[in-house]
Protein backbone atom coordinates (compact mmCIF):
# COMPACT_ATOMS: atom_id res chain seq x y z
CA UNK A 1 0.00 0.00 0.00
CA UNK A 2 1.36 3.38 -0.93
CA UNK A 3 1.68 5.70 2.03
CA UNK A 4 -0.14 8.95 1.72
CA UNK A 5 0.74 11.23 4.62
CA UNK A 6 -1.92 13.54 6.05
CA UNK A 7 0.01 14.83 9.02
CA UNK A 8 3.79 14.94 9.27
CA UNK A 9 5.61 16.11 12.37
CA UNK A 10 9.34 16.89 12.24
CA UNK A 11 11.65 17.23 15.24
CA UNK A 12 8.97 18.66 17.50
CA UNK A 13 10.01 20.20 20.82
CA UNK A 14 7.68 21.62 23.40
CA UNK A 15 8.22 22.68 26.98
CA UNK A 16 6.40 24.49 29.74
CA UNK A 17 8.49 27.05 31.66
CA UNK A 18 9.76 24.53 34.16
CA UNK A 19 9.24 21.26 32.36
CA UNK A 20 10.18 19.82 29.01
CA UNK A 21 7.33 17.80 27.51
CA UNK A 22 8.33 16.84 23.97
CA UNK A 23 11.99 16.35 23.05
CA UNK A 24 12.29 15.80 19.33
CA UNK A 25 9.25 13.95 18.02
CA UNK A 26 8.99 12.75 14.42
CA UNK A 27 5.66 11.32 13.44
CA UNK A 28 3.49 10.68 10.41
CA UNK A 29 -0.20 9.87 10.07
CA UNK A 30 -1.09 8.28 6.74
CA UNK A 31 -4.42 7.96 4.96
CA UNK A 32 -6.56 5.09 6.14
CA UNK A 33 -4.59 4.31 9.29
CA UNK A 34 -5.78 3.88 12.85
CA UNK A 35 -2.83 4.98 14.93
CA UNK A 36 -2.88 4.44 18.68
CA UNK A 37 -0.62 6.67 20.77
CA UNK A 38 0.37 4.70 23.82
CA UNK A 39 2.33 5.80 26.86
CA UNK A 40 2.18 6.54 30.57
CA UNK A 41 0.65 9.67 32.10
CA UNK A 42 2.64 12.77 31.26
CA UNK A 43 4.57 11.19 28.37
CA UNK A 44 3.41 13.90 25.97
CA UNK A 45 0.59 12.13 24.07
CA UNK A 46 -2.01 14.81 24.64
CA UNK A 47 0.57 17.54 24.09
CA UNK A 48 1.36 16.08 20.66
CA UNK A 49 -2.34 16.10 19.78
CA UNK A 50 -2.80 19.67 20.96
CA UNK A 51 0.22 20.77 18.93
CA UNK A 52 -1.18 19.13 15.80
CA UNK A 53 -4.49 20.96 16.34
CA UNK A 54 -2.58 24.23 16.85
CA UNK A 55 -4.06 24.65 20.31
CA UNK A 56 -0.52 25.23 21.59
CA UNK A 57 2.64 26.20 19.72
CA UNK A 58 5.91 24.25 19.56
CA UNK A 59 9.25 25.68 20.69
CA UNK A 60 10.94 24.01 17.78
CA UNK A 61 10.03 21.77 14.87
CA UNK A 62 7.39 21.69 12.19
CA UNK A 63 3.95 20.23 11.64
CA UNK A 64 2.68 19.65 8.12
CA UNK A 65 -0.94 19.10 7.21
CA UNK A 66 -1.66 18.12 3.60
CA UNK A 67 1.65 19.55 2.37
CA UNK A 68 1.28 22.93 4.06
CA UNK A 69 2.81 23.89 7.40
CA UNK A 70 0.23 24.23 10.11
CA UNK A 71 1.22 27.87 10.70
CA UNK A 72 -0.48 28.71 7.43
CA UNK A 73 -3.81 27.32 8.59
CA UNK A 74 -6.43 29.11 10.66
CA UNK A 75 -8.39 27.07 13.17
CA UNK A 76 -11.28 27.21 10.77
CA UNK A 77 -9.19 25.66 7.99
CA UNK A 78 -7.81 23.00 10.32
CA UNK A 79 -11.38 22.13 11.26
CA UNK A 80 -12.03 21.53 7.57
CA UNK A 81 -9.30 18.86 7.59
CA UNK A 82 -9.37 17.34 11.06
CA UNK A 83 -12.19 16.64 13.50
CA UNK A 84 -11.14 16.58 17.14
CA UNK A 85 -13.05 14.46 19.62
CA UNK A 86 -12.10 15.56 23.13
CA UNK A 87 -12.76 13.65 26.29
CA UNK A 88 -16.34 14.49 27.11
CA UNK A 89 -16.71 17.00 29.88
CA UNK A 90 -19.52 18.90 31.46
CA UNK A 91 -20.90 21.93 29.75
CA UNK A 92 -22.43 24.50 32.12
CA UNK A 93 -25.34 25.11 29.77
CA UNK A 94 -27.52 22.16 28.98
CA UNK A 95 -27.67 22.04 25.18
CA UNK A 96 -29.73 19.39 23.44
CA UNK A 97 -27.87 16.62 21.63
CA UNK A 98 -28.96 18.06 18.28
CA UNK A 99 -27.66 21.52 19.21
CA UNK A 100 -24.40 19.98 20.35
CA UNK A 101 -23.98 18.00 17.12
CA UNK A 102 -24.83 20.98 14.93
CA UNK A 103 -21.95 22.91 16.47
CA UNK A 104 -19.70 20.70 14.33
CA UNK A 105 -20.90 22.66 11.31
CA UNK A 106 -19.57 26.06 12.33
CA UNK A 107 -16.43 25.93 10.18
CA UNK A 108 -18.62 25.45 7.10
CA UNK A 109 -20.62 28.66 7.61
CA UNK A 110 -19.91 32.22 6.66
CA UNK A 111 -18.92 34.44 9.59
CA UNK A 112 -22.42 35.67 10.40
CA UNK A 113 -24.41 32.93 8.65
CA UNK A 114 -26.99 31.03 10.65
CA UNK A 115 -27.12 27.23 10.53
CA UNK A 116 -29.22 26.11 7.57
CA UNK A 117 -31.68 23.30 6.97
CA UNK A 118 -28.83 21.41 5.35
CA UNK A 119 -26.78 21.61 8.55
CA UNK A 120 -29.67 20.10 10.43
CA UNK A 121 -29.99 17.36 7.88
CA UNK A 122 -26.27 16.55 8.15
CA UNK A 123 -26.58 16.47 11.94
CA UNK A 124 -29.48 14.02 11.84
CA UNK A 125 -27.64 11.88 9.33
CA UNK A 126 -24.56 11.77 11.59
CA UNK A 127 -26.66 10.77 14.58
CA UNK A 128 -28.18 8.06 12.44
CA UNK A 129 -24.78 6.72 11.36
CA UNK A 130 -23.69 6.40 14.98
CA UNK A 131 -27.06 4.83 15.77
CA UNK A 132 -28.25 7.40 18.29
CA UNK A 133 -31.11 9.12 16.41
CA UNK A 134 -33.31 8.68 19.45
CA UNK A 135 -31.09 10.94 21.57
CA UNK A 136 -31.50 14.03 19.34
CA UNK A 137 -33.79 16.02 21.65
CA UNK A 138 -32.28 14.85 24.95
CA UNK A 139 -30.23 17.29 27.03
CA UNK A 140 -26.53 16.49 26.55
CA UNK A 141 -25.79 16.91 30.26
CA UNK A 142 -28.16 14.11 31.23
CA UNK A 143 -26.57 11.45 29.01
CA UNK A 144 -24.29 8.70 30.25
CA UNK A 145 -20.56 8.95 29.56
CA UNK A 146 -20.82 6.48 26.71
CA UNK A 147 -23.68 8.35 25.07
CA UNK A 148 -21.81 11.64 25.41
CA UNK A 149 -18.78 10.19 23.67
CA UNK A 150 -21.02 8.89 20.86
CA UNK A 151 -22.56 12.36 20.49
CA UNK A 152 -19.10 13.92 20.18
CA UNK A 153 -18.28 11.35 17.51
CA UNK A 154 -21.50 12.27 15.66
CA UNK A 155 -20.48 15.92 15.92
CA UNK A 156 -17.12 15.04 14.35
CA UNK A 157 -18.96 13.36 11.46
CA UNK A 158 -20.85 16.59 10.72
CA UNK A 159 -17.52 18.26 9.98
CA UNK A 160 -17.37 16.03 6.90
CA UNK A 161 -13.64 15.47 7.12
CA UNK A 162 -11.70 12.23 6.82
CA UNK A 163 -9.30 12.55 9.73
CA UNK A 164 -10.36 12.13 13.34
CA UNK A 165 -8.19 12.83 16.36
CA UNK A 166 -9.44 11.40 19.64
CA UNK A 167 -8.08 12.05 23.11
CA UNK A 168 -8.60 9.03 25.36
CA UNK A 169 -11.91 8.17 23.71
CA UNK A 170 -12.79 5.40 26.15
CA UNK A 171 -11.84 7.08 29.41
CA UNK A 172 -14.68 7.05 31.90
CA UNK A 173 -16.77 4.61 29.86
CA UNK A 174 -17.97 1.29 31.22
CA UNK A 175 -16.61 -1.91 29.69
CA UNK A 176 -19.47 -2.43 27.26
CA UNK A 177 -19.32 1.14 25.97
CA UNK A 178 -15.54 0.95 25.62
CA UNK A 179 -15.84 -2.05 23.32
CA UNK A 180 -18.79 -0.54 21.43
CA UNK A 181 -16.81 2.64 20.78
CA UNK A 182 -13.77 0.69 19.57
CA UNK A 183 -16.02 -1.28 17.21
CA UNK A 184 -17.44 1.96 15.88
CA UNK A 185 -13.95 3.31 15.23
CA UNK A 186 -13.01 0.17 13.36
CA UNK A 187 -16.24 0.31 11.33
CA UNK A 188 -15.69 3.95 10.39
CA UNK A 189 -12.13 3.13 9.42
CA UNK A 190 -13.40 0.70 6.78
CA UNK A 191 -15.48 3.57 5.38
CA UNK A 192 -12.36 5.59 4.64
CA UNK A 193 -11.76 7.54 7.86
CA UNK A 194 -8.30 7.96 9.37
CA UNK A 195 -7.88 7.91 13.16
CA UNK A 196 -5.25 9.12 15.56
CA UNK A 197 -6.18 8.27 19.14
CA UNK A 198 -4.42 8.27 22.45
CA UNK A 199 -5.03 5.40 24.80
CA UNK A 200 -3.98 4.08 28.17
CA UNK A 201 -4.81 0.50 27.24
CA UNK A 202 -2.32 -1.71 25.33
CA UNK A 203 -5.23 -4.12 24.89
CA UNK A 204 -7.27 -1.54 23.02
CA UNK A 205 -4.27 -0.64 20.91
CA UNK A 206 -3.93 -4.32 19.99
CA UNK A 207 -7.62 -4.62 19.25
CA UNK A 208 -8.16 -1.58 17.02
CA UNK A 209 -5.01 -0.14 15.43
CA UNK A 210 -3.16 -0.46 12.19
CA UNK A 211 -0.11 1.07 13.87
CA UNK A 212 0.99 1.77 17.42
CA UNK A 213 3.25 4.63 18.48
CA UNK A 214 4.68 4.40 21.99
CA UNK A 215 5.83 7.54 23.75
CA UNK A 216 7.81 7.85 26.94
CA UNK A 217 9.52 10.86 28.48
CA UNK A 218 8.63 13.14 25.58
CA UNK A 219 10.07 10.86 22.90
CA UNK A 220 8.73 8.22 20.57
CA UNK A 221 10.37 4.99 21.62
CA UNK A 222 8.58 2.52 19.36
CA UNK A 223 6.53 2.76 16.19
CA UNK A 224 5.15 -0.08 14.11
CA UNK A 225 2.62 -2.89 13.82
CA UNK A 226 0.72 -3.46 17.08
CA UNK A 227 1.96 -7.01 17.64
CA UNK A 228 5.55 -5.98 16.98
CA UNK A 229 5.53 -2.92 19.20
CA UNK A 230 3.54 -4.14 22.18
CA UNK A 231 5.84 -6.65 23.83
CA UNK A 232 6.49 -7.74 27.39
CA UNK A 233 9.72 -5.78 27.46
CA UNK A 234 8.05 -2.62 26.15
CA UNK A 235 5.32 -2.89 28.81
CA UNK A 236 8.00 -3.33 31.50
CA UNK A 237 10.06 -0.39 30.21
CA UNK A 238 7.15 2.00 29.84
CA UNK A 239 4.73 1.06 32.60
CA UNK A 240 7.06 -0.77 35.02
CA UNK A 241 4.87 -3.87 35.27
CA UNK A 242 5.15 -7.42 33.96
CA UNK A 243 2.73 -8.64 31.33
CA UNK A 244 2.37 -11.59 29.01
CA UNK A 245 1.34 -11.32 25.39
CA UNK A 246 -0.93 -14.21 24.48
CA UNK A 247 -2.22 -15.17 21.05
CA UNK A 248 -5.74 -16.43 20.82
CA UNK A 249 -8.05 -16.67 17.78
CA UNK A 250 -5.50 -14.86 15.57
CA UNK A 251 -5.51 -11.98 18.05
CA UNK A 252 -2.92 -10.91 20.59
CA UNK A 253 -3.93 -10.01 24.13
CA UNK A 254 -1.92 -8.28 26.77
CA UNK A 255 -2.36 -9.78 30.24
CA UNK A 256 -0.60 -8.37 33.29
CA UNK A 257 1.04 -11.07 35.43
CA UNK A 258 0.42 -11.27 39.13
CA UNK A 259 3.29 -13.02 40.89
CA UNK A 260 2.67 -12.31 44.53
CA UNK A 261 -0.97 -11.41 44.88
CA UNK A 262 -1.83 -7.93 43.73
CA UNK A 263 1.09 -6.11 42.10
Amino acid at each position, binding site marked *: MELNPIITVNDLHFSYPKQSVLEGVDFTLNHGEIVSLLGPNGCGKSTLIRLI*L*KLIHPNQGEIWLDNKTINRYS*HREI*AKHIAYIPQYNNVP*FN*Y*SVLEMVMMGRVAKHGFFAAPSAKD*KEVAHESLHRIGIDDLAQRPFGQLSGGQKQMVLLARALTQQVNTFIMDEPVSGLDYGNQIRLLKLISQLSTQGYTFLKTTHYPDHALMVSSRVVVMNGGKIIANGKPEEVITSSMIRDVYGIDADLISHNRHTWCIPTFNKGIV
Partner: protein
Amino acid sequence: MLRFKTFSILSSAMMVLLLIMVVSLLWGQYPIDFHTFMGYLEFKLLGGSGNDTYTLLDNIILQIRLPRVLLAILIGSSLAVSGAAFQAMFVNPLVSPGILGVLAGASFGAALGMLISEQWYVVQLLAFIFGFVAVGVAVLIGGMVSNSRSTIMLVLGGVISGSLFTALLSVIKYMADPYSTLPAIVYWLMGSLTMADLHGVLIVSIPMILSILGMVALSKYFDLLSLGDEEAKALGVNVPLIRFLAIVLATLASSLSVVMAGMIGWVGLIIPHIIRMAVGPSHRLLIPLSAIVGAIFLLLADTVSRLALSVEIPIGILTSLIGIPVFIIVLKNARAAWN
Protein backbone atom coordinates in the same frame (compact mmCIF):
# COMPACT_ATOMS: atom_id res chain seq x y z
CA MET B 1 -39.21 23.93 12.39
CA LEU B 2 -36.52 25.30 14.63
CA ARG B 3 -36.58 28.56 12.76
CA PHE B 4 -40.34 28.79 12.95
CA LYS B 5 -40.20 28.23 16.72
CA THR B 6 -37.50 30.87 17.12
CA PHE B 7 -39.43 33.32 14.98
CA SER B 8 -42.73 32.83 16.76
CA ILE B 9 -41.20 33.14 20.23
CA LEU B 10 -39.34 36.32 19.29
CA SER B 11 -42.34 37.92 17.59
CA SER B 12 -44.69 37.14 20.49
CA ALA B 13 -42.19 38.66 22.93
CA MET B 14 -41.95 41.70 20.67
CA MET B 15 -45.75 42.09 20.70
CA VAL B 16 -45.77 42.01 24.48
CA LEU B 17 -43.07 44.67 24.56
CA LEU B 18 -45.03 46.90 22.16
CA LEU B 19 -48.17 46.48 24.22
CA ILE B 20 -46.43 47.45 27.45
CA MET B 21 -44.82 50.34 25.62
CA VAL B 22 -48.21 51.72 24.60
CA VAL B 23 -49.64 51.20 28.07
CA SER B 24 -46.65 52.93 29.58
CA LEU B 25 -47.05 55.91 27.24
CA LEU B 26 -50.74 56.26 28.07
CA TRP B 27 -50.88 55.71 31.80
CA GLY B 28 -49.56 58.04 34.43
CA GLN B 29 -50.46 61.11 36.48
CA TYR B 30 -52.27 62.38 33.42
CA PRO B 31 -53.97 59.37 31.78
CA ILE B 32 -54.50 59.48 28.03
CA ASP B 33 -57.31 57.41 26.55
CA PHE B 34 -56.62 55.16 23.59
CA HIS B 35 -58.85 57.07 21.17
CA THR B 36 -57.07 60.35 21.82
CA PHE B 37 -53.73 58.56 21.47
CA MET B 38 -54.64 57.12 18.05
CA GLY B 39 -55.76 60.56 16.90
CA TYR B 40 -52.50 62.03 18.14
CA LEU B 41 -50.53 59.29 16.38
CA GLU B 42 -52.38 59.98 13.15
CA PHE B 43 -51.68 63.67 13.52
CA LYS B 44 -47.97 63.03 14.14
CA LEU B 45 -47.55 60.53 11.33
CA LEU B 46 -49.87 61.85 8.64
CA GLY B 47 -50.17 65.51 9.57
CA GLY B 48 -53.45 67.37 9.63
CA SER B 49 -55.00 69.91 11.89
CA GLY B 50 -53.70 69.90 15.40
CA ASN B 51 -55.28 71.39 18.50
CA ASP B 52 -54.33 72.35 22.02
CA THR B 53 -54.69 68.79 23.34
CA TYR B 54 -52.04 67.65 20.90
CA THR B 55 -49.65 70.33 22.10
CA LEU B 56 -50.19 69.04 25.63
CA LEU B 57 -49.69 65.46 24.43
CA ASP B 58 -46.49 66.54 22.68
CA ASN B 59 -45.25 67.63 26.07
CA ILE B 60 -46.38 64.58 28.00
CA ILE B 61 -45.58 61.88 25.49
CA LEU B 62 -42.61 63.19 23.53
CA GLN B 63 -40.89 65.15 26.26
CA ILE B 64 -41.63 63.15 29.37
CA ARG B 65 -42.85 59.62 28.79
CA LEU B 66 -41.27 58.55 25.49
CA PRO B 67 -37.64 59.25 26.48
CA ARG B 68 -38.16 57.36 29.69
CA VAL B 69 -39.83 54.41 27.94
CA LEU B 70 -37.12 54.25 25.30
CA LEU B 71 -34.41 54.46 27.92
CA ALA B 72 -35.94 51.64 29.96
CA ILE B 73 -36.09 49.50 26.83
CA LEU B 74 -32.52 50.28 25.81
CA ILE B 75 -31.08 49.69 29.26
CA GLY B 76 -33.08 46.54 29.96
CA SER B 77 -31.95 45.12 26.62
CA SER B 78 -28.34 46.15 27.05
CA LEU B 79 -27.99 44.71 30.53
CA ALA B 80 -29.75 41.42 29.78
CA VAL B 81 -27.84 40.80 26.55
CA SER B 82 -24.52 41.78 28.13
CA GLY B 83 -25.22 39.42 31.01
CA ALA B 84 -25.95 36.53 28.65
CA ALA B 85 -22.85 37.36 26.60
CA PHE B 86 -20.59 37.53 29.67
CA GLN B 87 -22.00 34.22 30.92
CA ALA B 88 -21.14 32.57 27.60
CA MET B 89 -17.74 34.25 27.25
CA PHE B 90 -16.55 33.18 30.66
CA VAL B 91 -18.37 29.83 30.52
CA ASN B 92 -19.85 30.86 33.83
CA PRO B 93 -23.57 31.14 34.57
CA LEU B 94 -22.90 33.23 37.70
CA VAL B 95 -21.46 36.34 36.09
CA SER B 96 -23.15 39.52 34.90
CA PRO B 97 -22.13 43.13 34.26
CA GLY B 98 -22.80 43.79 37.97
CA ILE B 99 -20.90 40.80 39.31
CA LEU B 100 -17.87 41.28 37.05
CA GLY B 101 -17.48 44.84 38.36
CA VAL B 102 -18.34 46.48 35.01
CA LEU B 103 -21.12 48.60 36.54
CA ALA B 104 -18.85 49.75 39.38
CA GLY B 105 -15.97 50.45 36.97
CA ALA B 106 -18.25 52.37 34.62
CA SER B 107 -19.73 54.31 37.55
CA PHE B 108 -16.27 55.35 38.65
CA GLY B 109 -15.37 56.31 35.09
CA ALA B 110 -18.56 58.30 34.60
CA ALA B 111 -18.21 60.07 37.98
CA LEU B 112 -14.61 60.90 37.15
CA GLY B 113 -15.85 62.25 33.82
CA MET B 114 -18.45 64.44 35.57
CA LEU B 115 -15.77 65.76 37.88
CA ILE B 116 -13.18 66.69 35.27
CA SER B 117 -15.25 67.58 32.26
CA GLU B 118 -18.52 69.06 31.14
CA GLN B 119 -18.38 67.11 27.91
CA TRP B 120 -20.88 64.29 27.57
CA TYR B 121 -18.63 62.14 25.39
CA VAL B 122 -15.82 62.31 27.98
CA VAL B 123 -18.19 60.85 30.56
CA GLN B 124 -19.23 58.05 28.18
CA LEU B 125 -15.69 57.28 27.10
CA LEU B 126 -14.37 57.12 30.67
CA ALA B 127 -17.31 54.95 31.72
CA PHE B 128 -16.50 52.50 28.92
CA ILE B 129 -12.75 52.51 29.60
CA PHE B 130 -13.12 51.86 33.32
CA GLY B 131 -15.88 49.31 32.70
CA PHE B 132 -13.41 47.49 30.49
CA VAL B 133 -10.59 47.85 33.04
CA ALA B 134 -12.91 46.43 35.71
CA VAL B 135 -13.55 43.24 33.68
CA GLY B 136 -9.82 42.98 33.11
CA VAL B 137 -9.12 43.25 36.85
CA ALA B 138 -11.79 40.63 37.63
CA VAL B 139 -10.37 38.19 35.06
CA LEU B 140 -6.78 38.80 36.19
CA ILE B 141 -7.58 38.18 39.84
CA GLY B 142 -9.77 35.18 38.98
CA GLY B 143 -7.00 33.68 36.83
CA MET B 144 -4.14 34.59 39.18
CA VAL B 145 -5.46 32.44 41.98
CA SER B 146 -6.35 29.48 39.83
CA ASN B 147 -5.44 28.75 36.24
CA SER B 148 -8.36 26.50 35.65
CA ARG B 149 -11.81 27.54 34.54
CA SER B 150 -13.09 28.27 38.00
CA THR B 151 -16.62 29.61 38.33
CA ILE B 152 -16.18 30.81 41.88
CA MET B 153 -12.75 32.43 41.41
CA LEU B 154 -14.04 34.64 38.61
CA VAL B 155 -17.01 35.68 40.74
CA LEU B 156 -14.64 36.53 43.59
CA GLY B 157 -12.39 38.39 41.14
CA GLY B 158 -15.44 40.40 40.12
CA VAL B 159 -16.34 41.10 43.74
CA ILE B 160 -12.82 42.43 44.37
CA SER B 161 -12.84 44.46 41.17
CA GLY B 162 -16.28 45.86 42.04
CA SER B 163 -15.14 46.80 45.54
CA LEU B 164 -12.02 48.46 44.21
CA PHE B 165 -13.98 50.72 41.89
CA THR B 166 -16.66 51.38 44.49
CA ALA B 167 -13.86 52.58 46.78
CA LEU B 168 -12.41 54.75 44.05
CA LEU B 169 -15.90 56.09 43.43
CA SER B 170 -16.09 57.09 47.10
CA VAL B 171 -12.89 59.09 46.62
CA ILE B 172 -14.58 60.96 43.77
CA LYS B 173 -17.66 61.57 45.91
CA TYR B 174 -15.44 62.86 48.73
CA MET B 175 -13.79 65.27 46.36
CA ALA B 176 -17.00 66.39 44.68
CA ASP B 177 -18.73 69.66 45.54
CA PRO B 178 -21.19 68.67 48.31
CA TYR B 179 -23.82 71.17 47.14
CA SER B 180 -23.94 70.42 43.42
CA THR B 181 -21.89 67.55 42.03
CA LEU B 182 -22.18 65.19 44.99
CA PRO B 183 -25.99 65.01 45.13
CA ALA B 184 -26.06 64.63 41.36
CA ILE B 185 -23.65 61.72 41.49
CA VAL B 186 -25.43 60.04 44.41
CA TYR B 187 -28.89 60.31 42.89
CA TRP B 188 -27.70 59.22 39.45
CA LEU B 189 -25.92 56.18 40.95
CA MET B 190 -29.06 54.93 42.65
CA GLY B 191 -30.26 54.12 39.20
CA SER B 192 -32.90 56.38 37.78
CA LEU B 193 -34.67 56.81 34.48
CA THR B 194 -36.19 60.17 35.35
CA MET B 195 -33.43 62.30 33.88
CA ALA B 196 -33.99 60.97 30.37
CA ASP B 197 -34.33 63.55 27.62
CA LEU B 198 -35.18 62.56 24.08
CA HIS B 199 -32.06 64.02 22.49
CA GLY B 200 -29.69 62.30 24.94
CA VAL B 201 -31.53 58.99 24.62
CA LEU B 202 -31.42 59.07 20.85
CA ILE B 203 -27.69 59.80 20.84
CA VAL B 204 -26.83 56.98 23.23
CA SER B 205 -29.22 54.60 21.50
CA ILE B 206 -26.95 54.34 18.46
CA PRO B 207 -23.93 52.67 20.16
CA MET B 208 -26.25 50.69 22.44
CA ILE B 209 -28.33 49.25 19.60
CA LEU B 210 -25.19 48.52 17.59
CA SER B 211 -23.66 46.64 20.54
CA ILE B 212 -26.83 44.62 21.04
CA LEU B 213 -27.07 43.79 17.32
CA GLY B 214 -23.38 42.88 17.32
CA MET B 215 -23.93 40.42 20.16
CA VAL B 216 -26.97 38.97 18.38
CA ALA B 217 -24.82 38.51 15.26
CA LEU B 218 -22.14 36.70 17.29
CA SER B 219 -24.63 34.58 19.19
CA LYS B 220 -24.01 31.34 17.29
CA TYR B 221 -20.38 31.45 18.45
CA PHE B 222 -21.43 31.82 22.08
CA ASP B 223 -22.66 28.22 22.07
CA LEU B 224 -19.24 27.08 20.92
CA LEU B 225 -17.28 29.26 23.31
CA SER B 226 -19.23 27.85 26.22
CA LEU B 227 -17.69 24.45 25.41
CA GLY B 228 -14.29 25.82 26.44
CA ASP B 229 -11.52 27.44 24.41
CA GLU B 230 -9.78 24.36 23.07
CA GLU B 231 -12.92 22.63 21.87
CA ALA B 232 -14.16 25.82 20.22
CA LYS B 233 -10.83 26.34 18.46
CA ALA B 234 -10.73 22.73 17.29
CA LEU B 235 -14.21 23.19 15.80
CA GLY B 236 -12.86 26.13 13.84
CA VAL B 237 -13.77 29.23 15.87
CA ASN B 238 -11.42 32.20 16.06
CA VAL B 239 -11.74 32.25 19.84
CA PRO B 240 -9.59 35.31 20.74
CA LEU B 241 -11.38 37.46 18.14
CA ILE B 242 -14.90 36.43 19.14
CA ARG B 243 -14.14 36.76 22.84
CA PHE B 244 -12.57 40.19 22.39
CA LEU B 245 -15.49 41.46 20.30
CA ALA B 246 -18.08 40.07 22.69
CA ILE B 247 -16.42 41.51 25.80
CA VAL B 248 -16.00 44.92 24.16
CA LEU B 249 -19.65 44.98 23.02
CA ALA B 250 -21.03 43.73 26.34
CA THR B 251 -18.89 46.22 28.28
CA LEU B 252 -19.87 49.08 25.97
CA ALA B 253 -23.59 48.36 26.25
CA SER B 254 -23.56 47.99 30.04
CA SER B 255 -21.24 50.97 30.61
CA LEU B 256 -23.52 53.21 28.58
CA SER B 257 -26.47 52.03 30.64
CA VAL B 258 -24.58 53.25 33.71
CA VAL B 259 -23.92 56.61 32.10
CA MET B 260 -27.60 57.04 31.31
CA ALA B 261 -29.19 55.74 34.48
CA GLY B 262 -26.63 54.74 37.07
CA MET B 263 -26.24 51.31 38.54
CA ILE B 264 -29.13 49.02 37.70
CA GLY B 265 -28.25 45.64 39.08
CA TRP B 266 -29.53 42.10 38.68
CA VAL B 267 -31.16 42.47 35.25
CA GLY B 268 -28.07 41.05 33.54
CA LEU B 269 -27.97 38.10 35.90
CA ILE B 270 -31.58 37.01 36.21
CA ILE B 271 -33.02 37.58 32.74
CA PRO B 272 -30.67 35.16 30.92
CA HIS B 273 -31.31 32.56 33.64
CA ILE B 274 -35.06 32.82 33.38
CA ILE B 275 -34.91 32.57 29.59
CA ARG B 276 -32.54 29.62 29.71
CA MET B 277 -34.98 27.83 31.99
CA ALA B 278 -37.86 28.60 29.65
CA VAL B 279 -36.46 28.00 26.16
CA GLY B 280 -33.11 26.25 26.67
CA PRO B 281 -29.52 27.47 26.50
CA SER B 282 -28.99 27.89 22.74
CA HIS B 283 -27.65 31.42 22.36
CA ARG B 284 -29.15 32.00 18.93
CA LEU B 285 -32.48 32.32 20.70
CA LEU B 286 -31.20 33.28 24.16
CA ILE B 287 -29.42 36.47 23.07
CA PRO B 288 -32.21 38.12 21.02
CA LEU B 289 -34.85 36.96 23.50
CA SER B 290 -32.80 38.40 26.38
CA ALA B 291 -32.83 41.72 24.55
CA ILE B 292 -36.62 41.75 24.35
CA VAL B 293 -37.39 40.28 27.77
CA GLY B 294 -34.78 42.52 29.45
CA ALA B 295 -36.58 45.49 27.91
CA ILE B 296 -39.99 44.16 29.02
CA PHE B 297 -38.73 43.61 32.56
CA LEU B 298 -37.25 47.05 33.06
CA LEU B 299 -40.09 48.87 31.33
CA LEU B 300 -42.65 46.97 33.38
CA ALA B 301 -40.77 47.64 36.62
CA ASP B 302 -40.53 51.33 35.81
CA THR B 303 -44.15 51.64 34.70
CA VAL B 304 -45.53 49.85 37.75
CA SER B 305 -43.40 51.89 40.13
CA ARG B 306 -44.49 55.08 38.39
CA LEU B 307 -48.17 54.15 38.64
CA ALA B 308 -48.40 52.32 41.92
CA LEU B 309 -46.33 54.48 44.18
CA SER B 310 -46.80 58.13 44.92
CA VAL B 311 -43.06 58.60 45.42
CA GLU B 312 -40.48 57.75 42.77
CA ILE B 313 -38.30 54.83 43.79
CA PRO B 314 -35.05 54.83 41.83
CA ILE B 315 -35.28 51.91 39.41
CA GLY B 316 -31.93 50.46 40.55
CA ILE B 317 -33.30 49.93 44.04
CA LEU B 318 -36.43 48.34 42.60
CA THR B 319 -34.59 45.88 40.34
CA SER B 320 -32.50 44.76 43.30
CA LEU B 321 -35.61 44.22 45.41
CA ILE B 322 -37.17 42.13 42.63
CA GLY B 323 -33.95 40.53 41.41
CA ILE B 324 -32.67 39.08 44.66
CA PRO B 325 -35.62 36.79 45.47
CA VAL B 326 -35.94 35.78 41.82
CA PHE B 327 -32.27 34.88 41.72
CA ILE B 328 -32.57 32.77 44.86
CA ILE B 329 -35.33 30.76 43.18
CA VAL B 330 -33.28 30.47 40.00
CA LEU B 331 -30.23 29.34 41.98
CA LYS B 332 -32.22 26.65 43.67
CA ASN B 333 -33.67 25.35 40.39
CA ALA B 334 -30.55 25.65 38.32
CA ARG B 335 -28.05 24.21 40.78
CA ALA B 336 -28.31 20.73 39.32
CA ALA B 337 -27.38 21.92 35.86
CA TRP B 338 -24.18 23.60 37.05
CA ASN B 339 -22.69 20.67 38.87
